[in-house]
């Protein structure tokens, strides 16, 4: 089986059809990450396509051998953040204020079939700014410094936002359990 680097080399030489092999390898993590950040299937599918098209366009500038997923992940996060950007501006001043829940209907709509599915649905109901840090931390296993760098924020800000997101999750899960 060809390595990512070998496939990239062939695509750059003109074998555009080989790019499909890279898409097949990475479509699941790209879609999962996009869906987890955007919490909307159609939007995530759209974003995932955009990720691969942008990756193809910039393939000749890719030099990070052996870390293709890291490069692709950054493109994915950037594209998804562009879509949720208007909602992500949160300052540390309102650190002790938990955003108001968007209505009881949210909790009624949560299907409590299994605990994991229920929790995942609750994560998707979080405001985008909180959901994105939770996803980068627990799905992508990135540390605070990496998240801060990717989002262009300070580490203390990321730390507080993750804390607040967890607090919201705990409260919402309690509501659902009642």
């Amino acid at each position, binding site marked *: 089986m060809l390595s990512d680097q070998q496939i990239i080399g062939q695509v750059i030489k*003109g074998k*555009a*059809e080989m*790019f*499909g092999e890279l*898409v*097949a390898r990475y*479509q*699941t993590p*790209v*879609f*999962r990450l996009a*869906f*987890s950040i955007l919490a909307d299937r159609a939007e995530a*599918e759209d974003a*995932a*396509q*955009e990720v*691969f*098209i*942008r990756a*193809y*366009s*910039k393939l*000749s500038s890719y030099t990070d051998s052996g870390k293709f997923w890291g490069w692709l992940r950054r493109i994915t996060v950037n594209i998804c953040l562009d879509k949720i950007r208007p909602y992500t501006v949160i300052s540390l001043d309102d650190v*002790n204020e938990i955003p108001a829940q968007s209505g009881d209907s949210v909790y009624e709509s949560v299907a409590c079939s299994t*605990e*994991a*599915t229920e*929790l*995942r649905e609750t*994560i998707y109901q979080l405001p985008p700014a909180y959901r994105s840090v*939770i*996803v980068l*931390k*627990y*799905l992508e296993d990135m*540390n*605070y410094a990496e998240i801060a760098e990717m989002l262009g924020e300070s580490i203390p800000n990321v*730390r*507080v936002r*993750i*804390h607040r997101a*967890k*607090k919201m*999750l*705990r409260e919402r899960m309690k509501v659902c359990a009642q």
Partner: protein
Amino acid sequence: MRCEECEILISACADDELSGTERTEMLAHICQCESCHRLYEDILVLHRNITTALREPMETPDLVSPVTARVIYHSRARFTWAWAAALALFIVFGYVIHKPAPQIKPAPVVVSTRPQPKPVVKHPRVLPSQTMVATPAPKHVTVQPAPKRIALYVRPPKTKHSVRVPKQYDIDSPIAMDTAEVVVEYSDMGLAAGHAADLSAPVPVAGPGQRVITTSETTIVNGKKTERMCYRVVDNDDKETSTQGETNETP
């Protein structure tokens, strides 16, 4: 330490993001505070659950077919443009080789009573006995593709979005070729949903002692914009270029 401060440290501790001092302070607090101790245990469980929840199996749509189709369409468009550029070069070379010899107009006769200063001829380019004119050899220049422009996201309005702005991407891989002039025409196509267009055009790069004269002409017919670019490589001391009209000169 207040409980609110400790809560933030508890969260960071579960993520293994505490310094030694912070950890000591946090442990000291939860040993005395029952509610923070309970929170600490809850958070550890929540941490595991979030990871499990986000990594649950998920149905992934097929992205291979649509992405590959777009990528192949895109690369074919690029191939077509390369052929168009080659054809343009062929025509230009044909013109250069069969170009008629320049005619010299006799200087106007000036009648004056006073003696005139002798005119200074800076570029005696035309030989006095002009029976045959040798066509100058084409200059060796390097041609780079222009920034590749891809308009991908023009699509029918949805409920949330209307129309997305086409994005631009740059690719630079120089191609060496012999030419003195390149003429390229390309159109701003009206794109259908999900279609991609590659509007790449070669741009000559001047060699040492040379410069590139760029002229462009934009026409709009039935709402479709067509831009005609003309690049000419000339020597820096070539005065002929000053006869150009509105030109953008690239050193």
